[in-house]
């Protein structure tokens, strides 16, 4: 890629001091997109079409076109409709939305308001993971300021558009980041994912039409309205455009969140943006988009870009763009056991394959890690993955199975070296 990343100017978290303060935000053109939408001849259809054309692919992991998702909302019937904003980011390796809450909360608020206007929602909920206590406080402050300035509430900016905005904190469950269990949690219930259909657009929060969007996705919306769909879709990769927050963690010199266009070469991100490998070690593996996305071997990353198509070709996924970089000293068995431990701990326990499977995976991996594993256990692990994938209500079972399947597949020699020869076959 000939693109000079150093010349890129961030737009989601731009380099403006104190941007989280509403006065600074409005001085720098903040809430202009909302005003534009509310005062001109923008009707809901026009907003949705603009966002659809910009091709904002959901930044929460699934990568679904946000405008298209909005268009699934049924026609208004006079009853309440909701926008639920997912700020539960709990996937290991993901820490990007936190930056928005901290440095540019009003961009997200503005985006959510535009989305609510487009879908004619009467209330917006933002669900933030419980561990982000300070960030929940920051959001509450930002919302209060926006209420005071009349950007939220009754008759916003004299347009006749009413919307309420609420912040809800989670209580520390990863599963509540799954969209339907987030709805359950918002309703005050146990965070069990719902059976689909009906989809949230038909029956969501309190049985009413609801759309769920990621925080970063919504933060892109004011930029699309301000600069146009063509501007947005012209940034980065053709099929997966726009600015994106890369959360780089692991064995690099400068871990952190970096805003850059999509489609950045993986190696550029590691070697240049994140300052290269720590202590000059060799790159062994990369988890490109949060712990559930399949790991890639360090020696297969040449020419791989951070966008959906390129990563799919390489055998992984974009996910949340939370990249976990591992150097040559990383023990893959230990790493995989730790990831499995996480999914075992976080399975909600509703569906059988996930409730039982995640625990079984972890226990076998622990056995291998402790040197008691046998070669046949690797076959069993792969078999269990097939028993879990696609067999549950939500995708947590898939998220738990993929790392196991692909880490064993791509680092099999390392696993075999830790296992004893099988003395007898499996039952």
């Amino acid at each position, binding site marked *: 890629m000939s693109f000079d990343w150093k010349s890129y100017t961030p737009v989601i978290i731009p380099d403006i001091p104190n941007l989280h303060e509403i006065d600074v935000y409005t001085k720098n053109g903040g809430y202009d997109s909302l005003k534009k939408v509310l005062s001109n001849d923008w009707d809901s259809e026009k907003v949705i079409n603009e966002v659809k054309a910009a091709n904002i692919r959901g930044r929460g992991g699934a990568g679904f076109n946000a405008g298209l998702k909005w268009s699934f909302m049924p026609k208004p019937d006079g009853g309440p409709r909701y926008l639920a904003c997912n700020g539960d980011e709990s996937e290991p390796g993901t820490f990007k939305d936190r930056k928005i809450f901290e440095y540019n909360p009003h961009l997200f608020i503005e985006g959510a308001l535009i989305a609510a206007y487009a879908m004619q929602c009467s209330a917006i909920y933002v669900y933030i993971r419980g561990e982000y206590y300070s960030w929940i406080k920051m959001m509450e402050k930002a919302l209060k300021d926006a209420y005071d300035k009349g950007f939220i509430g009754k008759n916003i900016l004299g347009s006749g558009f009413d919307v309420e905005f609420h912040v809800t904190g989670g209580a520390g469950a990863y599963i509540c980041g799954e969209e339907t269990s987030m709805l359950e949690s918002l309703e005050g219930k146990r965070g069990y994912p719902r059976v689909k259909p009906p989809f949230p657009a038909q029956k969501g929060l309190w049985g009413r039409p609801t759309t769920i969007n990621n925080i970063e996705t919504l933060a892109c919306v004011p930029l699309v309205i301000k600069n146009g769909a063509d501007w947005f879709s012209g940034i980065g990769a053709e099929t997966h455009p726009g600015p994106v927050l890369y959360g780089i963690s692991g064995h690099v010199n400068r871990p952190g969140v970096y805003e850059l266009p999509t489609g950045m070469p993986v190696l550029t991100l590691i070697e240049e943006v994140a300052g290269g490998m720590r202590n000059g070690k060799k790159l062994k593996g990369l988890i490109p988009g949060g712990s559930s996305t399949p790991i890639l071997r360090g020696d297969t990353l040449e020419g791989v870009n951070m966008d959906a198509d390129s990563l799919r070709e390489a055998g992984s996924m974009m996910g949340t763009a939370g990249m976990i970089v591992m150097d040559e000293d990383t023990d893959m068995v230990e790493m995989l056991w730790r990831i499995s431990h996480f999914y075992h701990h976080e399975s*909600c*326990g509703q569906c059988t394959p996930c409730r*039982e499977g995640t625990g079984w995976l972890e226990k076998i991996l622990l056995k291998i890690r402790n040197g008691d594993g046998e070669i046949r256990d690797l076959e069993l692990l792969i078999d269990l993955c097939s028993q879990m994938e696609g067999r549950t209500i939500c995708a947590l079972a898939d998220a738990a199975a993929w790392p196991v399947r692909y880490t064993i597949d791509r680092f099999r020699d390392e696993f075999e070296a830790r296992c004893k020869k099988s003395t007898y076959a499996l039952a």
Partner: protein
Amino acid sequence: MPEIFIDGKRYEFEGKPKLLQFILDNGKEVPFFCYHPEMSAPANCRQCYVKVGTPVQNRETGEYELDENGERVIRWFPKMQTSCSMEMTDGMVVHTQETSEEVARAQKDTMELILINHPLDCPICDQAGECPLQIQTYKYGPEGSRFEVKKVHKPKRVELGPRVTLDAERCINCTRCVRFTEEISETYQLTIASRGDKNYPITAPGMEFDDPYSLNTVDICPVGALTSTDFRFKARVWEMNQTPSIDITGGKGTNVDLWTRDNLVLRLTPRYNENVNTHWMPDEARMAYTKFNENRISRPSIKADGDNQIKTSWNNAIETFAEKLEAVKPADVLVLGSAHASVEENYALMKTFSTWGVNDFYFSPDVKEGFGDDFLLTDDQAPNTKGVKALGFSETSAEDLKAAIKSAKVVVLLNDELVDRGVLDSEDLKKPYVISLATNETETSKSTDLVIPITCIAEHAASYVNVEGRIQRSLPAKETKYTHRKLDLEMSEGRLDRYGTNFDNWVNEDNKVDCTPTWELMNNLGKRLGLSIQFGTSREIMDEIASSNSSFEGVSYEKMDDENGIQLTGMNKEEVSA
């Protein structure tokens, strides 16, 4: 009409049934645990997997697209679908485990996962023998287990409430019990606590699971996680005989099964009747079984010196009964029927005494205002209030009853605990000569001069009319001194009756009560008094009632059995008032 193809066979359907229920309704089988026809389908056990496809339709014409063989092109769902939550659509094609290896494999996979943390303690588990997990594991489960690591340990022997005990390790988290308290009894007393494989159902801290319908969760629990504290460890399921019957603790006429072993009733469970109680019964009704075994009156007794009752012979009892009657005029005899006794018993009593010359018959209704709910509990505490009324017994208040007893010389009292339930004082029964026909030893029976034991609902076939005017009948489950399982044709034929020896049936002479059905007692009394009455079996008595009393027109045991009870015409559904 819309059509669906299941395992290559075509079915037609109406409305929007769910696939699993439709499969079950059509006599086919798919294994499942969390689904229950009366509750919502959470699709969490992932056991009822099937392969589903829909025909491809041409977008413009709406016609089905055909392949080169002229067959419809089917677009298969990429994943296995849980049939419990699958809505049926026209032209859908379904493969169950019968025709698809893939489905059978998926079901086996789920079963293996369900079993890894299950303790597999069937030999000491109460549920064994009637356990959906056990049955379906044998039918659809894997042959062995590949689980070689440590199982999860969870709380055991947790007393959730006064009647239900939890073994969390056996729980497979189907959430049926939680949904029962949410959707059926609406007490919201249970929830799932903890997360992942450490999940189990529990009450809120410090709260008791004292739902008046709590024991239904034991019935619907597909494993032995919830067990009845009362029934725990009492008997294996396969040692018991199961006899259909009716609940006699309330006016609803809840359909039940009596479970007997060693000639004792050990538990009651609800029996499905869509017109009465569907799958449920109140906890209170379950404890009624003790009355069938304990405190039974065996052999007649008579007051000999002062207030002491001593046992006497049947001959002496009948002779005394007849002598006491012959010493007075029929007008001096007060005959009380009972809403706690069956239609046949009340009829036999009434017919005998009206032949002898008594004109007026009374009964005292048993109603507790405010006791009922809008579910299965009723204000009416007696099972047969409407039946007694329809036979011609008149309701009488406590004051009128006391006055009538005072002026009578002989009182005949059919099984009704008038003293125990506070209608009378035992003092009221002092003056006249009181003959009670009773099943259990109570304050009432102790206050009477002559007690003649009669059969209870567990020992005879008889009918009861519930508050809604529905007549339903019982079958004998226990032997008396004078009946035999193999000779009494009314006796329900359980598995052990059909295939077992006497040894298997555990029939013990000690547990047989020396009592007789009321109608047989009336035959003996009538013969002694020289009356022209002769009652046959209760089945024949019901035929006689049906042909002589318009309220019971068309009623017969055959019809009751075929239709699971009959709604009597001319009886409205409103509650009986005091």
